[in-house]
Each structure stands twice: as C-alpha cells, then as structure tokens.
C-alpha cells in the first residue's frame, strides 16, 4: 500500500511538472535568481528550486568575469541538475549589439549532473564572461542580458 502511495505521488508529480512556473526578480537588482516552482504534489508538497546568480559588475575591455550560480532547494525532494545553458540575448544601449564581439558568454562550467539535497543549497558552477577588446564604445555602462536555461529533475525518494 505504501508503495502504491509512492507511485501515486510520483505520478502526480509528473503531472505537476506541467505546472512549473518561473518567477523572476527585478533584473536590476544585484543578486538575481531564477525560481522554479512546481505545482503542489499529491503529498501536499510545493517544491521550490532557486538558481541564484551573483552580481557581475565592472566589465570592461579585456575583463573576464564569472556569473557564479547557486542552487537552492527548499523542497523535500533531492534535485538533480542535468543541464545549464547560457546565451547573450540583449543589451540596454542602442549601438551596443548583443554579439560576441561585445561580450562573450562561455559554456557553463560546472560538474553535471549536480545533486542538491532536500532543503540544501550549493554553488553549482558558473558561466564565464569575457568582454573582448573589440567591444564598441556604445557598450560603456550597458546592461547585458544573459538568458539561462536549466534542466533538472527531482530525484525520486
């Protein structure tokens, strides 16, 4: 009976995955995060997983920085991150195009899959950034938007 219950929970969780939503904080804040929220499961749980990105400031020609990511798992389920992808999508200034000659966004550097235990958090790699010398003058004081895609699963209990 207990096993059946677990299977029902798992099935409900699979259905609940369709109800995931992403809640974003104000992108202008220095500490940014991506929140993955699942619909409540059959056991009443409401898992929330958060990916935080440390603030990155002061990019200038030749500078290298890292967008350090931290995973926080507030649910009672272990989280397994299986993929993390980043790409440059926009800038805040006209004349400063979101192209690699202005800012290079490297592939995610970190060990995958990364398991984050229930109600735990851990640093989970980074996205390298490099502003090449070819960056145009219009990119001074620009804000670059990096789109991050996370692939993860909730590990079964």
């Amino acid at each position: 009976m207990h096993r059946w219950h677990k299977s029902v929970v798992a099935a409900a969780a699979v259905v609940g995955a369709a109800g995931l939503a992403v809640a974003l904080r104000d992108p202008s804040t220095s500490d940014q995060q991506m929140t993955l929220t699942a619909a409540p499961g059959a056991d009443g749980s409401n898992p929330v997983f958060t990916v935080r990105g440390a603030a990155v400031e002061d990019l200038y020609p030749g500078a290298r920085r890292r967008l350090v990511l931290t995973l926080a798992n507030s649910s009672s389920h272990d989280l397994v991150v299986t993929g993390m992808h980043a790409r440059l999508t926009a800038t805040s200034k006209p004349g400063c195009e979101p192209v690699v000659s202005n800012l290079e966004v490297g592939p995610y550097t970190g060990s995958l899959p990364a398991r984050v235990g229930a109600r735990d958090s851990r640093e989970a790699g980074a996205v390298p950034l490099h502003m090449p010398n070819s960056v145009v003058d219009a990119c001074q004081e620009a804000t670059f938007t990096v789109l991050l895609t996370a692939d993860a699963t909730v590990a079964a209990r």
Partner: protein
Amino acid sequence: MRHRRTRTGQSIRFLRSPLPFVGVATALAIGTGVAAYGDWDVGAEEAQFTVHAAGIPRMKAPTVELPGGEPQITAEGIVAAGPRIAWDRVTIAPGTPVQRYVVTRHLGPIAQVACDVPATGARCVDESAPAGYLVTYTVAATYGTFWTGEPSPASEPTLLPGEAAPIVVDGVVVVPGADGSPLVPAPGVSTSAPGEVVVVPQAGAADGRGEPEPVVSTSTTPAPDQVQPPPVHKPPAPPEESASAPDAGKPSSGAPEGTDKNDGDMEKDTPIGSAIDAVIPG
C-alpha cells in the same frame, strides 16, 4: 455451512491461483518503477540574468600652468616648453585605472589633440601651443581600443604668451582676435584684415564638447565646412585578463608596457595632429 465451506474453498483455491499474485506483483513493479525511475523533470525553463559594463567617468576640468620665466617663442610661432596641463586620475573600475589620457586644445571652434599619454602620468606639456592665443583644454580618459570617456569641462581660458599671428590648423585659417581669442574668417576673406571678416565665435568649444557653434555670417559666401575632428589615434589593445584568475592580468598602471615613452610624472605630448600647419606671415 457446506456452502460456506464451499465458498471458502473457492476463495482458498483462488488465492492459491497465481493470477492475483501476478497482478499484485505487476502493480508493485509498476509502482516501484515509477518511484525509482520516474524523476520529475523541472527543466527547460529560462530566466534572465543581467551583467553590467563599466564606464569611463567624466573627468574634472584640467588645470593649466604657463612656463615660468621669459617665454620662448619659436620661429613657427609656438610657445616653447608650452603650457603644462594637469588633471586628476580616474579609474574605470575599483583598482583598475584607465589606460590613456587625451588632452585636447581648443582654439575657438578648432579642437586638436595636444597630448595623448599613458595613464602613468597626470600631466603633460603642450608642445604645439600657438603663441598669443587664448586657449582652453579638455581631457578625456580612454580604455582599450574603442572606449573613450566624455571630455571634461574646459579649463580656464589661458592667454598664451607671445604675439599672435594668423595660423592654419588642419587647413582652417585662424586669426587672433583683439584679446587673443581665435577667430576663423569665412573663406575668401583676407586674413590681413581680421576686423572686417565674418568669424566663427568660439563659444561652442567653451563647454568642452568641442562642438563649434554654427557659423554666423552676413556674407553670401557659404560657410566653411566644419572643422575636421582631431585624427583618431588607436592605442594598442589592453592586456587580456587570465581566464584562470579573473582579476589577474590587470595592468598595474592601466597602460600597456613598451608602447609609449614615459618620462615619469610629466608626459610629453604625442604629436598627433597637434602641430600648427603654418603661420601666415603678417
């Protein structure tokens, strides 16, 4: 009772049948299978993160100091060991100085690079300052190949020593006004009679942006083309930071080594378009 026994016997026989056990086992297998392998996909979501570029700050107005002693004027009408321009250093990021400073001399509407020096210094000497003219200077910091800061406000106007003579700067004739203010006659007008020519006022350069005011002319002669901007000087690319050490490789001085002469605190100007083309004999 018999009937009951019979039913009991049927139940027992049913339980002894492998069918229900197979069904339960199958159900349990499915259930545990889901539990064991039915990981819950929470991925394929996107989120935006923002990172910020630095900017070169606008510098304060430079100060100008004339050389002491008897002024020396060259045969070309240039103040020998000309005015010394000084400024406050700036950084592009905490602990990271800019790489170069570009000082611009403003002769009315005409802007010319007076000094282009590495950021190791905070002063330079304008070696091409025309004698007898009222000049102002602005300074801007640069970093990398393309990044240039907004020019500073203009320095206090400085009347250079010596007797002013009409000069040609980048093909533009400049004549001295009564107070040393540079005047640019309209084309086709004799420079020997500056009081009679239509001139371009120099107010446009006073704000340090180097944008001349439109030519005000009562003549039907077309206004001269706008003054050519100072030639573009591309400094060498800044050093790349090490990938393994994000903050490593920053230039300690902000200037690439071996690319410029550095005589210490005082920087000599780089002769890039700063020279006066000619002095027109009076």
